[in-house]
Each structure stands twice: as C-alpha cells, then as structure tokens.
C-alpha cells in the first residue's frame, strides 16, 4: 500500500516520531483542559497563553537568575500554577453561578492580556532556549536520527500524563475529584471542602500547561504567540477525546499528533486541517467524543 503513495517506510516512521513529539504537547495541554473542564465546567481559553507563559518564565529564570533547565522544570509549573490559583480564587470563582460562556470570555480576555503584555516587552520574534547539556545530540533509530531532547519530550510527557491519570483514576484524592465532577454539591455535603478542591484543580491544570511550555522552550522558539495556534488544536483534541475525559485527552493528544504526522506523509496539504476534519467527523458520529460518556 505504501508503494501506491510512493513513500518510504523511513518517511512514515519519521513522521510518526514527529507526530509523537507534537502529540506530547497536545496530550499535556488537553489533559489540563479536560481536568479543568470536568470540575469547573469552564473552557479555559487562557490555556495557550499559560503554556506560553511557562516557556517565558523558564526563559526568564535562565536569563535573569541563571536558573537552568532542570530546576526550571520544577519551578515553572509551581510558579505559573500559583498564578492559576490566584486567577481562580479572585476572578474565575465569581462566575460559577452564571452561564459557562462568561468563563470562556473571561479566560479569553486573560489570554489576550498576557499575550499583549509579552508582545509589548519581547515583540513577535522568538527567544532561543538552549537544549540542556546532557540531552544534546541525536539518537540513531535506523529510520531516522532523533534529537535526544525530542525523545525526552515524548518520555517525560508520557510519564506525566500517566502519573496524572493514575492520580485521578486510582487514588483517594482522585476519587474526590471524580465525585465532585459528577455532583459537587453532594460531595461537599459529605464534609469535603469542594472550593479548595476546585482551586487546586485549576492550579494543577495550569501547571500542566506551564510544564508543557517549559518542555517546548528548547524545541520551538519562545515567543508570545506560541500558544495562539496550539490552543485551537488542543480544543479540537479535547472535543475528539470527549470533554472532561482524562484518558480521552491523553490518547487523543498522542493519537492526533501521529495522525497529523501521517497526513504530512500521504497528503501534506491537509496536515494542518486534519485534526479539525477528525473533530467534525467525531462530532457528527459520536458527539460526546471517543471516550466521553453520552450526555
């Protein structure tokens, strides 16, 4: 079949690898969006800007404070996650009793403000973030040379995604989160402080976005607009996986990264829209998403 398209197995495997790298970022971002949507019922439009903020905070830690990649990988999610907690506590919380569209508008406004702030300071041109020393070089996979850092992105993202899945699906804290996603009122009437759970969940979702941004800094240019396109793709992925579904977000994130890569091999012109085509088909055939529960 490959002969029909006149492509080599090397090309296919190479694009699958690139797809997995992009998919790593999609999965981290859609996972955070799905968790936030599940519990807060808010479509967090600020997600792309917070991803960008993660990359920039990492860049600033390096350039202004001399804090390197590995420490930044821990500090960036903590710092940006704390900003998320402040946003939830003082802004988003005020909108829980009104229509969900207000939450979307608020987070969209926050995204525009963060992006404008960084555009003002740094302009559109990107900043370079160096690959950490021990992850320099390439790995010979026989069908391609994979930069070690990009291999690390796939591994680290998979570990973080699976750990998050485990935390939510298999632990006591996760059972609070799942129950509160279904019926927050009743969970609170059982003696659990749901407002704190909501604040921490938003903070954790934002921290995941910032982690993705920090991981992306050495791969892409650190630019104020880096989150603008990816947030749209990630929304489509969350819809495909099923709004609020944890495993759906992870599988769809990696899966659609690969689908996008394969499209680049067989029909490159469609590679930038294939995710939206898949979204349209999923919405027609299974509106609750691949892993979503029927409403």
């Amino acid at each position, binding site marked *: 079949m490959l002969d029909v398209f006149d492509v080599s197995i090397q090309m296919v495997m190479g694009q699958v690898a690139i797809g997995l790298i992009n998919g790593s970022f999609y999965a981290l971002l859609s996972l955070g969006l799905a968790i936030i949507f599940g519990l807060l019922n808010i479509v967090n439009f600020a997600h792309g800007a917070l991803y960008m903020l993660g990359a920039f905070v990492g860049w600033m830690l390096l350039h202004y404070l001399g804090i390197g990649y590995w420490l930044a990988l821990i500090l960036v999610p903590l710092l940006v996650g704390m900003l998320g907690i402040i946003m939830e506590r003082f802004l988003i919380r005020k909108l829980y009793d009104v229509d969900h569209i207000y939450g979307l508008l608020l987070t969209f406004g926050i995204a525009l403000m963060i992006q404008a702030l960084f555009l003002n300071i740094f302009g559109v041109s990107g900043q370079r973030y160096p690959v950490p020393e021990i992850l320099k070089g390439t790995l010979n996979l026989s069908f391609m040379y994979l930069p070690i850092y990009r291999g690390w992105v796939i591994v680290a993202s998979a570990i973080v995604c699976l750990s998050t899945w485990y935390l939510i699906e298999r632990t006591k804290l996760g059972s609070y989160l799942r129950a509160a996603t279904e019926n927050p009122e009743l969970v609170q*009437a059982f003696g659990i402080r749901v407002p704190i759970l909501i604040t921490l969940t938003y903070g954790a979702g934002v921290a995941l976005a910032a982690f993705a941004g920090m991981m992306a800094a050495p791969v892409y240019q650190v630019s104020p607009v880096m989150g603008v396109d990816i947030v749209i793709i990630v929304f489509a992925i969350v819809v495909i996986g099923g709004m609020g579904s944890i495993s759906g977000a992870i599988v769809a994130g990696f899966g659609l990264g690969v689908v996008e890569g394969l499209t680049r091999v067989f029909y490159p012109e469609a590679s930038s829209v294939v995710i939206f085509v898949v979204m349209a088909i999923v919405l027609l055939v299974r509106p609750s998403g691949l892993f979503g529960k029927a409403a």
Partner: protein
Amino acid sequence: MNDPLLDVQNLTARYGESQVVHDASFHVNQGEVVTLIGRNGAGKTTTLRAIMGVLRTREGSIRFGGNDISSLSSDQIARRGIGYVPEERGIFSSLTVKENLMLPPVVSDKAMPLDEIYSLFPNIQERLSSQGTNLSGGEQQMLAMARILRTGAHFLLLDEPTEGLAPIIIDAIADVIKVLKARGTTILLVEQNSRFASQLADRHYVFQDGTIVKEFTNQEVLDNPTQVERYLSVEVVQEEEGSDA
C-alpha cells in the same frame, strides 16, 4: 428532658423566587426516629437540603446539639456529625462501589467498622469493585446508607429510602434502620410510605404545602392509620378541594 438534638424553628426556604418551605418548626430528640411525611412537592426534601446547608436560601433557626448551624457551609455541617442520604441516592458512576463507600471522610470515633458494615450489607461486599451505578436500586440505597455509617455520623437525614424499591428490599432497609435505632442513632426520615414509617418512627410531622400542619405520635398512627393516609392520598384531597369550591 434534655434539649433536642435538632431544633428547627420557623424555617423558610426558597428556590429563586418560589418559596418552597415556610414557617416550619419541628425538633428531633437524641435517639429518636422522626419522619417528615407528606405528598410529593410538600417541601420535605427541601427541608433536608436546608438543614444540610446544600440549599443556602433559607431563613429561620437551625440548631444542632445546641449550636446554630445555619451559617455553616455544608461540609462544616457534615463534620458536626450529620450524614445525608439524598433522595436520588447520590451514587457516583465514575467511582467503584468501594470508592463510593470510602468517599466521605470519617467525622467521629463512632464510625462503624467495615466488617460490621459488610455484615449489615452483605451485597455490598460482593460488589466492591463494580462501578457504583451498576448496582440495583436497592443495592444503591444500601450503599448510600453504608457510606454514611462508615463516617460515624450520629444523626442521619434519610430522604425517601424506600422510593421505587420492591417490598422485600423495603423490609431489608427497615431492618437496617431498626439496627441503627437500637445503636442509638438519631434519624430524620422523609417518607411518603406511612406503613414503612410507622414500623420505625417515634413521631411523625405531616408536611403540606410547604409547612408542618400536624404532629402525630407513632401510637396515634398505629391506632388510626387512615388519619395519616388522608394527608398522603391525592384523591382524598382532590375531593376536599372539590367540596370547598
């Protein structure tokens, strides 16, 4: 006689503009089983939600153990030892039976140990790893009650535990409530089934159109069941309304 464990005075509760409960006053003494009995829409469930703090738009005094709890949030009220079993049972579909059982935090040292819970509800132990909502209606009701007993709550709010269940399951639930009563648990039971209620309760308050219109001792109900039935039966009231017109 000691002060009542729960003392509700002049309770008014509303959803938005519509006032569902008005000027309801009643009390529950330590160790008693008391029912709120009345037809659908009379305000019984709303009263439980108001006591639990789930419904915030309420006025009047709600005292529990001598303290005013009306300004507390529902999680604080739960931690005072009030356990809530809602009408729709509130079993979570994304949690296993075991996770449902273990969900509410333990609130006192009177918590029922797991082995005792399993001997009281043998079906639950067999289904621990099932998805919560795969249980039958009766099993879900048992799980909703077991879940609260594990927390050590000493005052239970049970909202229509028999609704939609087969007679044999209703008997099993009655047996469980008798065991709890014998252990000294205080229970406020919302019911429409007066035969079930009269097996268990010490006193009954009749709810009608959002307020309490009558109080009966259980002996009065046992001696003359029809006087309670007439408050529950839709047909009789329609006749009355007809004769008024």
